[in-house]
C-alpha cells in the first residue's frame, strides 16, 4: 500500500465555484481522501487560518447539504466530513443519516474524544448503525490506553494531530510523537497539524502511514488561485511516493 495523502478544505471555501474546482483538480494529483469541514458554531480546537475560512464561508452563507451533494456527485474519492460534535449531539442520528443518504463515507468529530470521551463508544456505534463509519481523532495529550483502544474502532485510519491546534507551528518533536503513537496503534496511522516537508519525511520514517494537510491548503486558497494549492499537493505527493 502506498502512503496516504489526506487533504482538508473547508466546505465552500474560498467560494463554492473555486472549492469545487479545487476538489476536481486535486483529485487528479494523488489525493487519497478528502476531508471537508462544515463551518461550526465555534471552531474551538482550530487555529486562526481555518477559523478564518469558517468565518468567510458563514459570511456568504451556503446550503451545506446542497454543496455536499454536488461534491459527492463529482468526486469519486472517499469523503470524510469533519464537524464538531458540539453542533450535532442533540440530533446526531438524523445528521449521520443525512450524510449517509448523500453517500458520504466517513465522519470525523475532532471534539469526540476530548469532550465526549465517556460516551464515545456509544457515539461510534450510533454512527455505524446509521450506515456511516467514524474516523477517530487523537492527540498527544490523550492517554496511551485510550489511543490503543480507539485505534481498533476507527475507519479508514486513525488521525493523529500532532499540535494543540491546526496550523500553528508550535515547536514539537514529530518523530518522538509518532514513535509513541506507532507503538500503540493497531491500524493505519495518518498524521497531521502543521507538518513541513521535512516533517513529512521524518514522520513517515517514524512509522506514519500517511499525512493530512489542511491549513497550508486553506492558506494557499485564501491568498491566491487554486494552482498554488495544487502545487503543494503535488509536492507532498512527490515526497510520499519518493519514500
Amino acid at each position: 500500500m502506498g502512503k496516504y495523502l489526506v487533504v482538508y478544505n473547508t466546505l465552500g471555501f474560498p467560494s463554492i465555484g473555486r472549492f469545487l474546482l479545487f476538489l476536481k483538480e486535486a483529485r487528479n494529483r494523488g489525493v487519497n481522501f478528502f476531508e471537508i469541514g462544515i463551518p461550526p458554531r465555534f471552531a474551538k480546537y482550530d487555529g486562526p487560518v481555518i477559523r478564518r475560512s469558517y468565518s468567510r464561508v458563514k459570511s456568504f452563507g451556503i446550503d451545506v447539504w446542497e454543496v455536499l451533494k454536488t461534491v459527492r456527485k463529482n468526486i469519486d474519492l472517499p469523503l470524510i466530513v469533519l464537524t464538531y460534535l458540539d453542533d450535532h449531539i442533540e440530533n446526531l442520528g438524523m445528521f449521520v443519516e443525512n450524510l449517509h443518504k448523500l453517500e458520504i463515507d466517513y465522519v470525523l468529530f475532532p471534539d469526540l474524544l476530548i469532550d465526549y470521551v465517556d460516551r464515545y463508544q456509544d457515539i461510534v456505534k450510533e454512527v455505524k448503525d446509521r450506515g456511516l463509519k467514524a474516523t477517530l481523532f487523537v492527540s498527544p495529550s490523550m492517554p496511551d490506553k485510550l489511543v490503543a483502544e480507539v485505534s481498533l474502532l476507527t475507519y479508514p485510519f486513525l488521525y493523529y494531530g500532532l499540535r494543540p491546534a491546526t496550523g500553528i507551528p508550535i515547536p514539537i518533536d514529530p518523530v518522538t510523537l509518532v514513535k509513541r503513537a506507532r507503538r500503540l496503534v493497531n491500524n493505519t496511522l495518518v498524521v497531521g497539524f502543521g507538518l513541513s516537508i521535512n516533517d513529512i519525511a521524518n514522520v513517515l520514517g517514524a512509522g506514519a502511514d500517511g499525512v493530512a494537510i489542511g491549513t497550508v491548503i486553506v492558506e494557499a486558497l485564501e491568498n491566491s488561485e487554486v494552482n498554488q494549492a495544487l502545487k503543494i499537493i503535488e509536492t507532498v505527493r512527490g515526497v510520499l511516493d519518493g519514500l
Partner: protein
Amino acid sequence: MVNIPKRYLDEILPSYWYNIIPDLPKPLPPPMDPENGSSRIELLQKIVPREILKQQFTIERYVKIPEDVLEKYGIVGRPTPLYRAIGLERYLDTPAKIYFKYEGALPTGSHKINTAIPQVYYAYIEGVERVVTETGAGQWGSAVALAASLYRILSIVFMVRVSYEHKPSRRALMEFYGAEVIPSPSKLTNFGREILSRDPENPGSLGIAISEAIEYTLSHGYRYVIGSVLDVVLLHQSIIGLETIKQMEIIGEEPDVIVACVGGGSNFGGLAYPYIGLRNNGKRFIAVASAEVPKFSKGVYTYDYPDTAGILPLLKMITLGKDFISPPIYSGGLRYHGLAPSLSLLAREGVIECTEVSERDVYRAARIFAETQGIIPAPESAHAVKVVIDIALEAKKRNEKPVILFNMSGHGLLDIENYRSMMIRYGKG
C-alpha cells in the same frame, strides 16, 4: 530523623523526568484560543523559550534531563533529604509513620528551583539575555533569580504588591541573586497602568503579575519563565517524586497516603504524579488548598485564562476566575486563582482527594511542626502539615498504622514576619 546515606546519591537522582499525561485516566483538554481576537497559542512562541514549548507539547512519558541541568541540580543540593518525622509522631502519639520530602533544603528554600533551572537553561542556550517572571510570596521569584545567576543571565521579577511590601526578606534575597524586583501592579506596563488608574491601592494578584510579566516580555523581546500550572513545570517537578520513590525503596517503606499543598499544583504534582502514574496501588492522594483561596469548594472546572489580562491561551482547569484576588490579610503563597489542568482533571475524576485549610489551622500546624521537628515549614507547606496531623490522629483513633508521606515544599524562615502577623492575630494558637 532518618536521612539517606550519601553513597546512594547516584542511585536516587533520576536521569529522566516523568510526564503523567500518557497515564491520565482521560484526555487532557488542549489549550484553546478565545472565540474572538488574535491567537494566544501562536503568541506563545514569542513568550516562552522554544525548547520549553517543545517539551510542553512533545508529550512522552520519560524525558531525558540534560547533563547541564543535572549538574546544576547537584550544585543546589539534589537529591533532597527524605526524613521521618519521629518528633511529630511522638507528640501525636500515633501508630502512623510520617515521612516528609524536604524541598526546603534547597538554597532558596523551596521546590521551585527544580523547574527554574531547566527553564533558565533553555533560555540561556537560546541566547536570551533576560528572563522575566512573576512571583506571589516570593519563592518562585527567588528560584528564578538564583537560576538566572547560575547561568549568568539577568532576571526581572514582577512581585505581587502586597507581598512586595510584607516580605522584604524575599525581595532582598532576589536582589541579592541579581534580580530586578518590581511591585505589581506597576507603571511599567499598559496593563499595570490601567489597573492602577482604576484602583491605585490594588494589592495585586498573581494573575495581574503574570499579565505584566508577559506584556513586559513581549515588549522587550525577552523570555518568560513559568512557575506552575503548565504540564512542562510539573514534568520538571517530577524529580521530587522520582527521588522519593527510590529513597522509600531503600528504607523498605511504601506510602499509603501522600499529601501536599496546592497553589498552582507544581509541588503536589512533583511528589504525587510519579506515584499516581507508576505506583498507584490503592494509595490515597490528598491535595490541600487554602480556605482563603477556596478553589476546591468554590472553583469551577472550565476554560479560563491563566492570567488576568487574558494574554495566554485558555486552559481547562478548576478556577476561581482570572479576576480573583485573595484577601489582603492572607499571607500564604497559595494564592493563584487556578489549578494545573492535569491536577484539575485528576481531582474531577476522583483520583485525588481535595480539602481546604484555614490560615488559623495552618498557623497551629506550623507551630506544632516547628516545636517537634525544629523545621519551620513554609506557610504553604503547613497546609499539608495540618492534614497530616489530622490523618495521624485519625489513625490513632482507629489503631491503624498508615505510612504517611508529605511534601515539605519549603521552609518558612523567610516568612517569619508573616508568622509574626499570624501570632498577633491568633495568639498562641
